[in-house]
């Protein structure tokens, strides 16, 4: 079964541009300059149920726009999206019961209230009865080790504790798909590792599909089997993490062969190869090289 | 209801301007701050124009209200003709709307509560003067626009003021500028209490309301005789009654009296402001942010 199916997805924004200064402001009233920006351009991929996928790319590559289309916030201009067999835009509410979202930089919690109060609110949002909510909080706070601070206002928690609460809040209703947007941003290495372990555990025990965006290569390396790199609204690479690393290592010797296999990524890889010694490259180096080859860094 | 307008104030100013000349001309930097905000605000002129609606509503209500209260055109209420009464409200409201004090109220409180003050107070300028310079830059754009608009409404809907002499305009302008500045100093003082208490906005409401009810809507003469000397002691006399009275009914003695009162109030207000600020900063040094 496929959790997410995306076919030839496109999204264009029409944006009014304004010239600088007073004259620009006045001019814009009469002659608004409208610019079209192709944020997502013919993206196709599928995610298996229970898979953990990293969806990465430089800033402004179209990651958030894609996530927004997957969660029903934005509707696509072209192409097809199905999440859990539903079209997000048409069945936004039904879909919302089955997906969870964590945005590392945007807080969904009431910071002046305790995690416990917050969880009760999310329980109500997802129509869980008081008892169900209670049980689920019990279960998750055990697993995520929240017991010590579950009655402390969120604003008094450390960032690591807070993000754990954010994740628990988005898991209360047992979502089948979890969208994680930079979940480990700003965390120290130990807490990062802890959060990753919890996500892995979640995936194992509840068979949750994980759709992750991150700039942290550690997240990708330690969590995901598969990686999709987007740039300029297009997929430049879609490969398993393992495969990517191996191929890169043997890149020089197998350059020609590679070109046949994963055509879209090749330009990046070839350019990358020229820039340095590939034999001891880490995943981070590989990704940096691919970005560079795209002319983005 | 009716808290003072909540116009947003655009991003903080770069402070590096004019640093080189600090020692030679210590006042120059405030001029530069003023100019930067002025230029920035010229771009928001359209927003200011949208604000005319609320001003118009107020004035329109008062035109109708006084139209109802004056039974005959010759009647005098508290010594004012109907035209004078309406022009009085128009002028005080112009000062109120034109000098919308977002910087001295909301922003100062935010700087202090948010901890931004720690960076601002170590800059080579005095924080309170920096704020006043910024504030002046703001109203220098708004006020002239409101003045033109007010005169326009007045000319069309109310009719000209009797005995108005153009030659007195510069004195009136000086008096108005002093009034606005005194008002800003007092509001700044209230904001500075943010060093000690969480939320100073309720005190701003009360101050605004006091000015509104006792100074803006009615001239002092309309209140019971026993109260009038008391009212003349309050800042209201220098902040709105004074300037508006001069515009509506100019006389030389009145002018001198009001300017002197304003000088006293400005000096006292600034002394109070520096005193509170000093205390607040000392508290910050002792307790940390």
């Amino acid at each position, binding site marked *: 079964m496929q959790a997410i199916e995306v076919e030839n997805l496109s999204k264009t924004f029409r944006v009014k541009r304004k010239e600088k200064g007073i004259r620009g402001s006045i001019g814009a009233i009469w002659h608004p300059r409208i610019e079209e920006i192709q944020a997502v351009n013919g993206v196709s991929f599928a995610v298996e149920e229970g898979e953990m996928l990293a969806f990465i790319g430089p800033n402004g590559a179209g990651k958030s726009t894609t996530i927004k289309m997957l969660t029903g916030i934005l509707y696509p201009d072209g192409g097809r999206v199905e999440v859990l067999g539903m079209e997000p835009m048409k069945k936004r509410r039904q879909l919302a019961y089955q997906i969870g979202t964590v945005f590392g930089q945007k807080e969904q919690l009431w910071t002046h209230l305790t995690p416990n109060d917050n969880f009760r609110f999310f329980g109500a949002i997802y129509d869980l009865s008081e008892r169900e909510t209670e049980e689920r909080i019990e279960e998750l706070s055990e697993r995520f080790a929240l017991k010590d601070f579950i009655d402390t206002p969120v604003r008094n928690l450390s960032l690591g504790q807070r993000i754990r609460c954010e994740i628990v809040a988005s898991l209360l209703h047992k979502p089948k798909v979890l969208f994680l947007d930079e979940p480990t941003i700003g965390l120290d290495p130990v807490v990062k590792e802890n959060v990753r372990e919890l996500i892995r555990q979640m995936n194992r025990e509840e068979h949750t599909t994980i759709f992750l965006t991150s700039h942290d290569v550690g997240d990708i390396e330690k969590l995901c089997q598969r990686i999709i790199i987007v740039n300029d609204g297009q997929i430049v690479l879609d490969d398993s993490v393992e495969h990517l690393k191996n191929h890169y290592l043997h890149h020089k010797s197998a350059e020609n062969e590679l070109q046949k296999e994963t055509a879209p990524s090749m330009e990046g890889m070839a350019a990358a190869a020229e820039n340095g010694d590939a034999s001891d490259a880490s995943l981070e180096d590989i990704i940096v090289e691919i970005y560079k080859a795209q002319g983005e860094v | 209801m009716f808290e003072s307008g909540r116009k947003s104030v655009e991003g903080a100013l770069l402070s590096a301007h004019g640093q080189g000349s600090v020692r030679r001309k210590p006042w120059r930097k405030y001029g530069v701050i003023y100019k930067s905000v002025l230029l920035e605000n010229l771009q928001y002129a*359209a927003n200011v124009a949208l604000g005319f609606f609320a001003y118009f509503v107020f004035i329109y*209500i008062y035109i109708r209200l006084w139209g109802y*209260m004056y039974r005959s055109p010759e009647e005098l209420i508290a010594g004012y003709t109907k035209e004078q009464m309406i022009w009085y409200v128009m002028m005080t409201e112009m000062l109120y709307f034109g000098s919308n004090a977002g910087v001295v109220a909301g922003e100062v409180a935010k700087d202090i509560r948010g901890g931004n003050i720690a960076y601002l107070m170590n800059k080579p300028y005095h924080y309170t003067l920096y704020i006043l310079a910024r504030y002046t830059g703001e109203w220098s754009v708004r006020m002239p626009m409101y003045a033109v608009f007010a005169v326009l409404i007045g000319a069309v809907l109310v009719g000209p003021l009797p005995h108005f002499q153009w030659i007195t305009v510069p004195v009136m302008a000086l008096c108005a500028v002093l009034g606005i500045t005194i008002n800003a100093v007092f509001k700044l003082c209230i904001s500075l209490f943010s060093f000690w208490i969480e939320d100073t906005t309720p005190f701003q409401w009360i101050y605004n309301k006091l000015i509104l009810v006792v100074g803006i809507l009615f001239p002092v003469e309309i209140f019971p005789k026993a109260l009038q000397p008391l009212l003349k002691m309050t800042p209201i006399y220098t902040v709105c009654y004074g300037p508006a009275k001069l515009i509506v009914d100019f006389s030389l003695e009145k002018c001198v009296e009001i300017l002197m009162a304003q000088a006293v109030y400005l000096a006292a207000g600034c002394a109070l402001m520096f005193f509170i600020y000093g205390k607040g900063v000392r508290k910050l040094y002792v307790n940390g942010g």
Partner: protein
Amino acid sequence: MLTVVKNQLRVCFLSIQYNIMREMVNKVTFLTNVVFMVLNDASILVQWFILFRLRDDVGGYSLREVLMLWGLVAASFGLSNILFARALSLPNLIINGKLDAYLVQPKNVLLGVLTSETRISAIGDLLYGVILVCVCRPGVGGFCLFLLFTITGALAFTAFALLLGSLSFWFVRMDILQNQMLMGMINFGTYPDGIFQGAARILLYVLLPVGMALWLPSHVMARFDGKMLMAVLGYVFLLSAAAVAVFYRGLKRYASGNLMEARL
């Protein structure tokens, strides 16, 4: 269907309850906000005592009627800002693309947005309105009418704010216009309609929800009239329906992503 409504209401009440709980963390701030707003509203009484010293009636209203009108406006505004304060900051939410959080929740977007903020000072407004009306001693029937009109008034305030705020989906600077129009509504609403004549009066009954949502109820409270009461109810219903329709039209535009630069 019934459980859907029940669940939705549960979420709304929790949301408002949490808004208030959040503000009560600092008790001193909470209390000064409420108490000072009562004082702030009460200070305007000075104006009316002065005006009634000059004449026995203002625009055909006695002092008692003016006070009742003031009570109604304050209570309506207060109730609206306790339950649905976000209607007033809606432009901000739209412009900054902050509706996303409500769109990923499996609940009604509009109700989720509206109940996501509570203005604490509004409790002071509501309190002041109720006190003022109690001082006028309207009797049990009169007080029931006052409560009814407070609810319709609050709905009218919210709907009007929502209607203007939703225009932010299409136009810039709607936050300023919205603020101006609401202040205009309150300002006109707190003066007797008798001082306005001719075209101005008609405009105030048609263009702004002042006449139908505030003045007409004050007439009904002064002298009961069933037809007028029905007219008020019908008007508020239509205004609310229009506001909701415009919001959802705008939301479609929001989902097209074409309204702002910041969201890329």
